[in-house]
């Protein structure tokens, strides 16, 4: 202050104003950085915490969810709870989640949690619960899964609300015994809602099948890949349209039923 008093009043005022503005700005930057760090850290959703059906992507969800808990109140099965600071580390405080191994989503047809959400953090566009994508089930431990060992547990398959669509039992050869089958639980992600009933009901002390966030659970094929057996249209329009080669006379598909049977046979070895 003593330095300021020596200056003309106008200059002193301007200097004081600039100093105070710079102080305020510096304080805001320091505090703002800390707050930004805390807020963006909260976007890292722990792998075992599942958002309610219809939840927006985690980034968009934290912009939308006001943490009011109306979805929690609407849930008839007490599946949902609000994250508590300290008790649920990694989760943004006060946001709704469920843990599949404790209480899975019962997939109510009227989706009351979505109806209750006042902000659209749970997307009102979700009208069929089968279209919910809370996560994706993964048979995460094929060494301990009883079915993978060749036994018939089948519990995850039986409890799946989308049985034979989201989880199928795929027959495989049991190489250990040599003459048994393995009924391998196989998840089909396009039908899996991530409700978590499979994880909840796995009979092992630690579930062999777990629901993970889809981003963790799934690979992403490259955009330019074309699966020939799924392509019904020519790869490049009007450039390549080869005639379909059906089994039959005149083709080289000799072994196929109805295929060309030559009128002569090569003499077999040993004759």
């Amino acid at each position: 202050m003593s330095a300021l008093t020596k200056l003309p009043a106008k200059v002193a005022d301007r200097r004081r104003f600039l100093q105070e503005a710079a102080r305020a700005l510096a304080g805001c930057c320091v505090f703002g950085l800390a707050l930004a760090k805390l807020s963006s850290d909260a976007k890292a959703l722990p792998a075992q915490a599942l958002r309610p059906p219809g939840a927006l992507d985690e980034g968009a969800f934290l912009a939308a969810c006001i943490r009011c808990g109306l979805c929690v109140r609407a849930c008839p099965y007490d599946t949902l709870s609000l994250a508590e600071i300290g008790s649920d580390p990694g989760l943004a405080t006060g946001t709704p989640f469920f843990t599949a191994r404790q209480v899975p989503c019962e997939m109510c047809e009227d989706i009351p949690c979505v109806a209750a959400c006042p902000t659209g953090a749970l997307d009102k566009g979700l009208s069929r619960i089968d279209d919910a994508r809370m996560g994706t089930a993964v048979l995460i431990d094929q060494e301990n899964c009883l079915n993978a060992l060749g036994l018939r547990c089948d519990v995850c398959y039986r409890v799946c609300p989308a049985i034979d669509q989201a989880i199928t039992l795929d027959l495989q050869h049991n190489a250990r015994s040599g003459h048994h089958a393995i009924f391998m639980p196989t998840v089909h992600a396009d039908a899996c809602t991530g409700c978590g009933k499979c994880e909840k009901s796995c009979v092992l002390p630690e579930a062999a099948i777990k629901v993970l966030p889809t981003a963790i659970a799934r690979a992403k094929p490259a955009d330019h890949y074309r699966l020939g057996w799924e392509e019904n249209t020519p790869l490049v329009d009007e450039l390549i349209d080869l005639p379909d080669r059906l089994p039959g006379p005149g083709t080289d598909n000799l072994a196929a039923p109805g295929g060309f049977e030559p009128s002569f046979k090569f003499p077999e070895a040993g004759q």
Partner: protein
Amino acid sequence: MTTANQRLATMPASRERRWLRANLFLVLRRSSQAFFLLIFMIGPWFGIWWVQGNLAGSLTLGVLPLTDPFVFLQSLAALHWPATSALTGAVIVALAYGLLGGRAYCAWVCPINPVTDAASWLHRKLGLKKGWQPPKSTRLWLVAVALVVSAITGTIAWETVNPVSMLHRGLIFGMGSAWLFVLAVFLFDLLLSRRGWCGHLCPVGAFYGLLGEKSILRVSAAKRSACNDCMDCYAVCPEMQVLSAPLNGSDQNSPLILSRDCSNCGRCIDVCDLDVFKFTHRFDRTPAAAHAKRPSHTKKIQGQLPGQISGEIR
């Protein structure tokens, strides 16, 4: 300082009525705070779901949506356009506080207020120093920081650390370690900075203050001519800077307390023996004669800020 209780001792006649007269708004305010907590608690406690949710967002009787407008605004800043229900709720709440005094939220609803009031009471009893007093503009800067950080991170940023919602939500849905935040606010106000949280830092209160910039319901120093400079009101007012202009203004100046910092708590009405203050509306043009200044007092007051005065008269 002549406290309300000391005054009681000198006036034994109709004790109860005098006690009530000296504590009416405090009692009403605590009742209101308890009401806004209990109305949310009877759901989880007794299964009576009149009100669901918490102060950030709620649904009353299945029809009335209410949304915290500050949370709503941060959500907008984070580029989420909320559904109609949240929008309606925010508009209703903003209108209500726009009429009743923005910071009426702080005095009559906020669950942190009893905590900071307790800290302030203990601060007074222990005769502690004022401590760090950041500029009153700090909370406005924090409003800006909360909105900017919300926009940058795409989250509702202040809710990451907001002790107000942590306490209210915690009591209703489960506390976790949120009580540590509440304890931190209490200790901050008690030991580091008198009235520091609500009076200087909390951006929620500052935002509600901005909402109530033109609010209708206001306190007025209507009978300021009767003021005898006992300073009770300064000692008890959580935002004492709002008092000096209306109280000490000349005949032409309005006795209305129009500062957005005033929380309409009415405690000045309670503590004033001479009934200087009353609730009225902002358009009240009743002329009020200036407060007669005794020379000794005038001299003493002019050189000092109100905060320093009340610091002395404890």
